[in-house]
């Protein structure tokens, strides 16, 4: 029983992080029809910046305090800021060009960001593993589980709710959806498309950065984490449907559970199984579970 509870919680934990990455990826695609290959690097940036900020405070002898958790947000803010700079400078000139070029420039960005993080923070992982211990752990249905991980699950849940409310319940959300459905029409109706694009991109990057920031105390900020995360996020959006927020949520939960099962029962082919699931979904439902073709 308690192992089952643990597995479920672990799955939700993965799903929370994956959702935050995939949600940004799918939002950006949904609005501007760009697949950002550097999206995983913004997730890594979130992890590095929050790890760095916390590292500055962690002088020998100081104990981590509760308010340090707030500093994790620094990673999300940094990723959002990076997004706000990158969209107008690098992506905007390419909207009218062929898809190949859009993919390629984000690939170039991936190479640049990957090494920038290496340059600034060096080859060694950053982490602040003492932080989660502050929160202690709880016993749920007989299983002991760290409270920090529960917090991560909760943040994922709040992020999903927040994005949903934002997109479906605010005026900005209406504009966003209108732009995503018909950019020309929206522009003709007086929507400032440039501003919508930069806002959507920034929001997407914020979510990725948040995911990176909150996983950092557990798995650290490591080189290559962005490239690895992107591929998993791809699996999520392919299953859920590129451009669909509901799809990102369901996809993240599916991938979260399959990963947990995989680690237990078929560790060697866990990734292969995930990619195969994504492939089968694309074959059966080309637009993904929630996508519109």
């Amino acid at each position, binding site marked *: 029983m308690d192992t089952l509870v643990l597995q479920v919680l672990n799955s939700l934990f993965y799903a929370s992080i994956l959702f935050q990455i995939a949600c940004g990826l799918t939002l950006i695609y949904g609005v501007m029809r760009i*697949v950002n*290959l550097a999206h995983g690097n913004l997730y890594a940036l979130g992890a590095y910046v929050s790890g760095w900020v916390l590292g500055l405070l962690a002088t020998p002898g100081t104990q981590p305090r509760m308010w340090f958790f707030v500093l994790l947000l620094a990673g999300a803010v940094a990723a959002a800021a990076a997004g706000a700079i990158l969209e107008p400078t*690098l992506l905007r*000139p*390419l909207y009218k*060009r062929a*898809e*190949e*070029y859009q*993919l*390629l*420039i984000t*690939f*170039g*960005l*991936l*190479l*640049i*960001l*990957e*090494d*920038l993080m*290496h*340059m600034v923070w060096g080859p060694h992982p950053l982490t602040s593993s003492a932080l989660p211990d502050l929160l202690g752990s709880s016993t749920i249905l007989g299983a002991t589980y760290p409270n920090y991980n529960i917090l991560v699950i909760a943040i994922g849940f709040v992020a999903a709710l927040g994005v949903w409310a934002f997109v479906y319940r605010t005026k900005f959300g209406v504009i966003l959806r209108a732009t995503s459905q018909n950019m020309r029409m929206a522009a003709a109706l007086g929507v400032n498309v440039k501003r919508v694009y930069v806002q959507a991109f920034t929001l997407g990057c914020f979510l990725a950065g948040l995911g990176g920031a909150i996983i950092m105390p557990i798995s650290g900020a490591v080189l290559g984490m962005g*490239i690895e995360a992107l*591929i998993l996020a*791809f*699996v999520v959006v*392919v299953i859920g449907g*590129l451009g669909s927020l509901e799809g990102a949520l369901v996809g993240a939960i599916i991938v979260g559970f399959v990963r947990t099962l995989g680690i237990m029962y078929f*560790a*060697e*082919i*866990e*990734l*292969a199984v995930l*990619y*195969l699931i*994504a*492939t089968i979904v*694309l*074959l059966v439902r*080309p637009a993904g579970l929630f996508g519109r073709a």
Partner: protein
Amino acid sequence: MRQKVLTYAAPIAVALAAVPFVLPPYQTILLSYGLIMAIAALGFNLLLGYTGLLSFGHSAYFGVGAYAAAFLVKYAGITSIEAFLLGGLIASALVSAIFGFICVRHTRIFFSILALALSQVLWSLALKLFWVTGGTDGLRVPTPTLLGGLVQTTGDKLVFLSRTYYYLVLVVFGISVAVMWLIVHSPFGKALQAIRDNETRAEFVGVEVRKYRWIAFLVSGVFTGLAGTLWVPLNGLTTPDVLYWPFSGEIVFLTVLGGFRTFSGPIVGAVAFNYLKSYAVGLTVYWQFLLGVVLVVLVLALPSGIVGTLSQLRGRLARSAWHEPA
């Protein structure tokens, strides 16, 4: 056209044949790497430039070619290069036939992502099934024999790689260029270009679009696989890195660097990228950063690549000379 081929190809062939006598061994080996990547890029560009499909998963076929040779060494004790090439061709044909069958059901970004996802199945298997594939350590491939031992391949490895193996690479490269040139100028090649330009109309003149895309995918994968097979004895080792998706990104990069709208673009791009990368790697540990900047500048400023830009320049010069008053 025949004349054009002779005026361009003949001098280049002579120059390439003379390389081992002119350049030091290290440079010759470096050029071998470039020519091998050119074969991969030629295959890749049959899809991108001629069929209009951007694969972000061509590392798969390169890797299959490389691992096919490595498996022959490890599990059959075979070290003949002819067997490597045959095994690489068969293995990459099989894998690209299956992957292609799945991928060509989609176009545009979905095709790219599907190709990428499938390639990562192989990557994760190569990484995780370490008792078969050697995991991150990869598999070693020794100096191969040539023509069943008729050609001396023992002795100094550097001499072998910079002489005998260079010529082998050059011959395979020459054949690959000729075959690909024929394919893109064949009625089949025209049909691919028609699909690229206008899928619906191609269907309505009787071209079975999906089938032709699949055949193009198969040919493309086999060329890239062949490159992987040739690469592995030169490198001496294959690791899952050649299956990882950033390597697919490199193949896209070098093709666009040369210019994917021309036949020779990928060849020029592959050789140029190879020099650029080895120079960047020698210069700084942050070579990825350097390559990233080159790529961004390329996309923003020179989208038609080296060959495309050169021919535009030549066109402009010719026009301005034409318009000059006598």
